[in-house]
């Protein structure tokens, strides 16, 4: 028997697989395909202070080994998250819930974090300072170490929950941002969000997504994510959720070996809603093949 459990700071997960924010809706969407209680945890769709429709359509562009999305943080707002989405999920799901919050200013994040504080069903707060699809916020807050630290500090001041800051890879040195968040009190980091990308329709001579640019994700970014996780995990003491392009159990183990404490699976669920289930079922098989008894403290030789 192999042991799939991992520790994410003080929280024990039955296995390291977590659907990434934006690729599992608010949980119920995935629950139509399988029993989501088999997941390690779940990270819900990014939520802002006010409801948002998001960007104009089209929001999706096909890419080699991936996709660009420019959804633009469509969400019903923090109040509806707390009054409707999370209670509906909790009724069918008993594993940890990660609430992903986003905003356009330090105050927006503090506002959402304070609201989330009243919700005992939220186990972890994920602070999204890395969304490439909104202007004047999102990623702009995650590319400057001082602003990233200010957001982290403001959230920590009003929240008693474990706070994981989700970082963008669209920076010169991700370690600088990671260290700034750690110093500001982050309990952990999610590494990485999507890469800023663009496709052009050569027939219409227009960008494929209406917003022009969007976040690039999928298997193509996996090596970038492994590198970023490796750099951050070896520069910081706080736990890292490794995210970016994972679609197989082997890649979960690779990400853990890079230094992640747990992993998030994103785009794979958009191609196959059963992706996380199939990866979790495959993990013991791959572990046995590799002679691994558990997934904690997997290190490079």
């Amino acid at each position, binding site marked *: 028997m192999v042991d799939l459990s991992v520790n994410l700071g003080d929280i024990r997960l039955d296995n390291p697989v977590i659907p990434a924010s*934006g*690729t*599992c*809706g608010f949980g119920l*969407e*995935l629950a*139509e*395909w399988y029993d989501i209680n088999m997941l390690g945890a779940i990270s819900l*769709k990014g939520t802002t202070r006010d409801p948002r*429709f*998001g960007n104009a*359509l*089209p*929001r*999706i562009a*096909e*890419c*080699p*080994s*991936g*996709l660009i*999305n420019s*959804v633009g943080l*469509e969400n019903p707002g923090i109040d509806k998250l707390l009054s409707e989405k999370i209670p509906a999920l909790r009724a069918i799901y008993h594993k940890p819930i990660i609430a992903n919050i986003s905003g356009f200013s330090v105050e927006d994040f503090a506002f959402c974090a304070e609201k989330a504080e009243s919700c005992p069903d939220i186990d972890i707060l994920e602070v999204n300072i890395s969304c490439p699809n909104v202007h004047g916020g999102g990623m702009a807050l995650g590319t400057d170490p001082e602003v990233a630290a200010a957001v982290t500090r403001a959230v920590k001041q009003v929240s008693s929950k474990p706070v994981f800051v989700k970082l963008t890879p669209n920076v010169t040195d991700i370690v600088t941002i990671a260290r700034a968040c750690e110093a500001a009190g982050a309990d952990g980091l999610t590494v990485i969000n999507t890469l800023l990308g663009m496709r052009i329709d050569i027939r219409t001579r227009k960008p494929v997504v209406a917003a022009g640019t969007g976040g690039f994700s*999928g*298997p193509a970014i996996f090596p970038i994510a492994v590198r970023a996780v490796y750099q951050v995990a070896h520069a910081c003491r706080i736990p890292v959720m490794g995210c970016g392009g994972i679609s197989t159990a082997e890649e979960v183990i690779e990400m853990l070996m890079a230094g992640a404490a747990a992993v998030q699976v994103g*785009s794979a*669920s*958009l*191609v*196959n*809603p*059963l992706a996380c289930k199939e990866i979790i079922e495959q993990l013991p098989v791959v572990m046995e093949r590799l002679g691994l008894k558990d997934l904690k403290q997997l290190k490079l030789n």
Partner: protein
Amino acid sequence: MATERTFILTAIEPVAAATWRLQLSGDTSGLRCAGQFVMVSVPEFYLRRPVSVCDCEPGLLTLIVKVMGEGTAALCALRPGREISLLCGLGNGFDLSACPKGKEAMIIGGGVGVAPLLLLCKQLREADRHVTAVLGFNTKEDIFLEKELEAAGADVIVATADGSAGCQGFVTDAIRMCVLKSDYFYACGPRPMLKALCTQLRQDGEVSTEERMGCGAGICYGCTCQTTSGPKRTCKEGPVFKKEELVW
């Protein structure tokens, strides 16, 4: 309930210009009704492609695909015997009960949007509704499903934009010229056609819309449209919306 299943491509044949009929065998139990769609996995492409269900009987699925880009070209180049993964039974589908028993239904399709009308016609006929089908194409070479719809019991009117077959003009012209009457309409096709129908036809109706999709399963929020009752996902709460729900 929607399912992921492996189907076998048993036949593929051209039915009109750049338009192919794909016959697939596999577990069709995930499909509930006409107007639903499947997400088709295409070799060498990352995202699945949404395709409306043209016809379905237990174990046998018919899709009609028009080559629009590289993905649909790759799909139409597949040979019989090939295994294809499908997400089956997605979307809400048409509401047959919206057209009361014994009443007249008009089913209207434009271009490849004609595809889902066959199963719709069969289900409406089974439920004892009279069906008039109005099919709009650009030109004669684009016409498909005319005979199949007649065989399924519909009175079929064809319109072509260039006048090379049937009435000359759009489906709205054909409806006006032929003085077609009905109690309720169902439509699928390009957005300008749907807009014209929803704004010009007096009777109630519903239309199947098309958007570029990510997952097709309500997960990614890539295809949300604005409606009179708030934002709705084309793939999940749609693709069929009531005439009065849509914002043009």
